[in-house]
């Protein structure tokens, strides 16, 4: 028993259900692909008649109440961290093998204690909402096969007997080879092993030999180890924001389960918990709790958090939550002696980021005319790194006077004769119109709620001043002055 593999089949689906309690025990399918190629990739057992690979339309036909979701990367990251945390409780040498799969190098450990820890880890993972399986064997490959085959925990002792009935797909043939061996009628690893390795190699080349070796469990490899976590942080963004305590508390429980496992795997305990609630009005609510006693017990953390949250009333809905566990042995950090502060050009971007944090990302940048005929609409682009070279002068320079826009525009009442403005009455400007040019008409956005239509005039008032008048949605406004 040199290696253990922790595995969650249909990982994306389990991660999603773990993160959304409303999906538990319901017919749910993860779908991928666009248009005609949209198909089910993973499916819960409640979705009767639906299998992976089925077209989405057919899945809807077969299971009318089915809930179709795409993968949730944030939920998967959370679930992966949890799985890794569980793996680190078995060994400090852990590989992130792939989606829903970690491999731990158990060499040098006590087999009896390791097996007991594996069972504990499975229980903790199940409590944290992740139905994992663990397989153990002499090689990472055998451990992986064992994990796929396990009910909960399977330790392989007689490799050859174990391998014989396993599905050939376990050996992951290349797509082209999978079709060939399927056409040969091979279904199990034993079927392939029964063929001569040389004959298979003759037909399928080097990859065929490798496939045969994988089928025989002969393949060995070196693990690509991952670093244990050093910071114990969990973060989640709600879409849409939440306004009751239940979803918030559900998420904090999921955080606590993972962070506690991570701390234990790294040999730490938490002495403080930092809670941040990001509110929909772009403010934040922060609070730090010193735990009565350093530890990694989920229930005691949750008691502290729950007691506090019951008293909290926020001004806006909660858009995100973050929980930070401070370990009792904090990492040391040496400040730089030569930090130059804001004099560094990079500080510009830092300042900009701070501004954005204050006023919002969508309100910082260089204004740029938007690609629309709608007047005075702009987008904010990221400022250019350097001043661009001057463009060629326009073929036809703008004629007449420049428009100085009033923001907001001035409401005005307009008197018309023969559909032409002859008089204005407004708070800031008014009087008889000496001359009027126009109208110029524009419109767009008719296909969406933001439809617009506007008629523009330039009017010279008898009292002086040339103004730009706009008539839209039955109302007149003075948009600016031409000067």
């Amino acid at each position: 028993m040199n290696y253990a593999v922790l595995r969650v089949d249909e990982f994306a689906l389990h991660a999603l259900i773990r993160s959304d309690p409303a999906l538990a025990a319901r017919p749910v399918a993860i779908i991928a692909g666009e248009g005609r190629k949209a198909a089910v990739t993973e499916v819960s057992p409640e979705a009767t008649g639906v299998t992976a690979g089925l077209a989405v339309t057919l899945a809807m036909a077969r299971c009318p109440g089915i809930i179709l979701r795409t993968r949730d990367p944030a939920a998967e990251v959370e679930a992966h961290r949890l799985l890794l945390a569980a793996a680190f409780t078995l060994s400090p040498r852990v590989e992130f093998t792939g989606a829903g799969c970690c491999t731990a190098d158990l060499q040098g450990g006590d087999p009896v204690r390791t097996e007991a820890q594996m069972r504990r880890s499975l229980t903790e993972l199940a409590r944290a909402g992740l139905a994992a399986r663990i397989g153990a064997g002499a090689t990472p490959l055998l451990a992986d096969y064992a994990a796929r085959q396990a009910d909960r925990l399977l330790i392989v002792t007689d490799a050859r007997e174990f391998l014989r009935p396993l599905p050939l797909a376990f050996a992951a043939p290349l797509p082209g080879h999978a079709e060939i061996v399927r056409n040969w009628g091979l279904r199990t690893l034993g079927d392939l092993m029964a063929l001569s390795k040389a004959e298979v190699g003759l037909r399928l080349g080097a990859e065929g030999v490798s496939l045969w070796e994988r089928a025989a469990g002969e393949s060995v490899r070196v693990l690509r180890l991952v670093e244990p976590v050093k910071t114990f942080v969990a973060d989640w963004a709600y879409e849409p924001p939440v306004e009751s305590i239940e979803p918030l508390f559900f998420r904090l429980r999921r955080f606590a389960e993972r962070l506690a496992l991570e701390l234990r795997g790294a040999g730490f305990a938490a002495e403080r918990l930092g809670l941040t609630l990001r509110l929909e009005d772009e403010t934040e609510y922060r609070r730090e709790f010193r735990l009565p006693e350093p530890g990694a017990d989920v229930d005691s953390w949750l008691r502290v958090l729950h007691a506090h949250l019951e008293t909290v009333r926020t001004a806006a809905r909660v858009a995100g939550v973050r929980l930070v566990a401070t370990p009792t042995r904090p990492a040391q950090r040496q400040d730089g002696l030569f930090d130059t502060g804001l004099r560094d050009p990079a500080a510009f971007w830092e300042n900009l980021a701070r501004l954005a944090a204050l006023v919002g990302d969508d309100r910082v940048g260089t204004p740029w005319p938007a690609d629309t005929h709608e007047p005075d609409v702009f987008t904010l682009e990221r400022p250019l790194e350097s001043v661009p070279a001057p463009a060629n002068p326009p073929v036809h320079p703008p004629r007449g006077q420049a428009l100085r826009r009033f923001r907001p525009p001035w409401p005005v009442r307009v008197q018309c004769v023969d559909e032409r403005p002859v008089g204005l009455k407004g708070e800031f400007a008014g009087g008889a119109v000496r001359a009027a040019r126009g109208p110029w008409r524009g419109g767009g956005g008719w296909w969406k709620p933001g439809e617009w239509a506007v008629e523009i005039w330039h009017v010279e008032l008898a009292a002086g001043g040339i103004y730009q008048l706009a008539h839209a949605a039955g109302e007149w406004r003075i948009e600016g002055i031409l000067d």
Partner: protein
Amino acid sequence: MHYVELHARSAFSFLRAASSPEALAAEAARLQLPALALCDRDGVHGAVRLYMAAREAGVRPLVGCELTMEDGSVVPVLVASPAGYRRLCALLTTAHLRAAKGEGRVTWRELAEDNGDLIALTGDAEGPVRRLWRARGAAAAAEAGARLADIFGPDRLFVEIQRQFLPDDEAENEFLVDWARARRLPLLATNGVVQATPAAGGVLDVFTCLREHTTLDAAGRRLARNRERHLKEARAMGALFADLPEAVHNTVRLAERLQFTLADFGYRFPDYAVPAGETQESYLRQMTWRGAQARYGALTDPVRRQLERELELICRLGFSGYFLIVWDLCEFARRQGILVQGRGSAANSAVCYSLGITAVDPIGSRLLFERFLSEGRTDWPDIDLDLPSAERREEVIQEVYRRYGRQGAAMTANVITFRGRSTMREVGKVFGLPDDVLDRFSRLFHGGDFPHTLELTEQLKLAGLAGGHPRLPALLETCRQVRGLPRHLGQHSGGMVLSAGRLSQFVPLENARMPGRSVLQWDKTDCEDMGMVKIDLLGLGMMAVLQDTLEICARRGRPVDLARLPKDDPATFQLIQAADTIGMFQIESRAQIATLPRMKPETFYDLVIEVAIIRPGPIHGDAVNPYLERRAGRQPVTYPDERARPILERTLGVILFQEQILRLAMEVGGFSAAEAGEFRRAIGFTRSPERLDRMKDKFAAAMKRNGVGDEAAAFILKSIASFALYGFPESHAISFALIAYASAWLKTHRTAEFYASLLNCQPMGFYSPATLVQDARRHGIRTLPACVQTSDAACRVDADDTVRLGLGSVHGLRAGAVAGLLAARRDRPFASLADFLRRTGFNAAERRALAGAGALNALAGHRRAALWEVEAVGEGDELFRRAVAEDAPVSSPLAKMSHLERLQADYVHLSLTTGAHPMKLLRAGLPGLWPADRLREGRTGERVQIGGAVITRQRPGTAKGVCFITLEDETGFANAIVWPKLFEKARLVISLEPALLITGRLQNEQGVIHVIAEQIAALPGAGLPEQASHDFH
């Protein structure tokens, strides 16, 4: 003040304008514009439609065109005379024929060389002058203008100015006015019209997006700035150009100079080159009498009289050359061994019969010649020729090009319009709807599906678009507006137009997407409206089957002469009466099969009626049940009026044929033959319901004058109205019935040859090859698998009860590789699999396909052994390894395939199985299921459960939302009827599941068996192959 709009585009500028020519004509009439010039982009595609609509609306339809020049600028030209029109057509043809479809450009040199009687405008923002003014300034613009002035001179170039309420209008117009005055060129006000009314502005934006392959959200400034480019009345244009009144006045002056309309376009059909000393008339007479002798033997008086009458009329109307040309084409086909048969109303003509153009004796069949040709008729008679589909038909088409040249003949266009499902897909995409919603919509709501049981909003909801979606109202309105507008130009399936001289003088020609074909810019109705002669060279799958069957029969020493088939063969009629008609022409559809047991055809004419009666016309006109009930003696035969008795006697008082309408019009309504002909055309002219209404009113008044009672008149008018929804002429039904009968006779007496040919001519007909093979099995025909040692490329008959699949049936084999195999085998048979692999040139995928399909079994023993061995061969000679190096017998360590595995491999590589039907494997696990062939033992009302592969799903428009499903099992077919409510409930399952389990009540009446569905579910049985289905057509 008067004004004429001289620069308008229609939707026939294909995605560059938003209104049909008819809508432009109607709006021009409403605005009291005296004339309107249509300048579509690079063509005159919409000219005929404008001509027809504007003439009727009292607006003078002027012809123009926007020419895309080699530098990308666009020059609008207007046609002043017939000579100018010919030049325009020639310019466009030259540009289009040298470029790929849609990329034709006129060179400045061509325009300079030949522009007489064309009047140019400087154009709008895409015109050479304004385009350069914007890009490079006044000097460059003046230079471009000068080039135009040099080409057209000061009297044929107008400086176009537009005011569309845009801020930049004035600066540009100031330049244009100054430049025009400096060059002493006249100004011309236009509105650069791209839509009839402002309401069509949304459509224009959508079209822009489609053209630019973008969405409305991303299109930005490419969309129209406002909706001002619509037709405007004189007063509005006068007000806009109050400071330049001459620009408006010049529109009227110029319109007066434009003397050309399509009334003068001068088309003439080509003469037939007759031998020296003959005229077309004398030669036609000579050929007709010679043919009549061969057809009729001794010429009786009625035959002589009819032929004389027809010849006299044909010659007097000047159609002799036309008949000779069609006759000569038929002769060509016959010389090449290509089956050919005229269809349509030509079969009403004894001359056509004598010339061998048609196969129906109209005198013996008492057909009405006036349906084909009549006194006072000005349009050309319609002769359609049925030919075997694919290569043989192409031989005839290419012969026409060879005889008349690429500029003397062309296929008629087929205007592809925005229709149901495609409209939603395209418009939805532009509106930014997600692909998966559009995809689900397409899959759930088939093109041929009956659309009316579910509102469009509900359909979209089912596809995943929420009912309250903010874009839904605009989407629905845009789809409504877009529907019916042209999308692009395709080619008609077989209509060819010929002309005396160059056809390209009369209408511009373009390259078709298909190599070697050219297409003219008008569709068949346009050509008819303009009096152009069209010969339809139609490809018919069944003609190809007949041809192939006859060839196989001849090779096997059992030749058949189609012309001499007995018309009263009892065995053939027995098969037809039993509705055992899979594979037969016209009578194999589900609806036909459901009618045949009631109709029980006993004679050839019964078959004619059977072909004609299952059509939307008779179904809508409620003619089907009365006819069948009267035929069965359960209903008395009555006539709406005693004068109708001789006309409707053969159809038991029911109106089934167009000829009957004509004769009713003449004999009950007192119409002349020409009036009756006009009435017939109005019925067939679906573009204008008003035209039909006018004729119906005229007919109703005529019947009243002739003393026809109100009830009888109402009955006749209702029957006529139904013919607007497609009814056959009797002659056409007879022509089709001839082919149907031939196919039935061959299925009865040359069964193996017939099935082999059906398989060779796929895709065609209603049923998939898998169904045909199963049907063949039920007729005692064994189908043997494809085999590299024995199969040909095509299916072959090995014995009277045995068909051998051809190697062409195996998916994915290159024809060249198969030909190489056959050549190698002709040298000597393959001694071993190694020998086969060594001497053939199949690639790895092909070798696997042959092995998987069982085609290598003769050399390898079984499929798995073959699959094992073919993998031992590398690509390329030098890589040949053991299997080829050693000629050792094949020894595979692999087990043979099971029955189910062979079945699956069959469907993967052949889409059919020569073994047992897949349902046979499932039968044991479904004990309550009724086999299809046992349903006839059930009682009406009995609850039954049927199951099988879905081979048809249909919701015809005539069935008011009812869905018909045909399931196939190992014993035959079971039909189910699904009422609309259940259909909507189970739409997803019905539309998407390849095999169904249907529970319901049996209906077994008069030999017609249906299950009225009550529950529908997917058939359990994962792993069974999916079969092709004929859906919603």
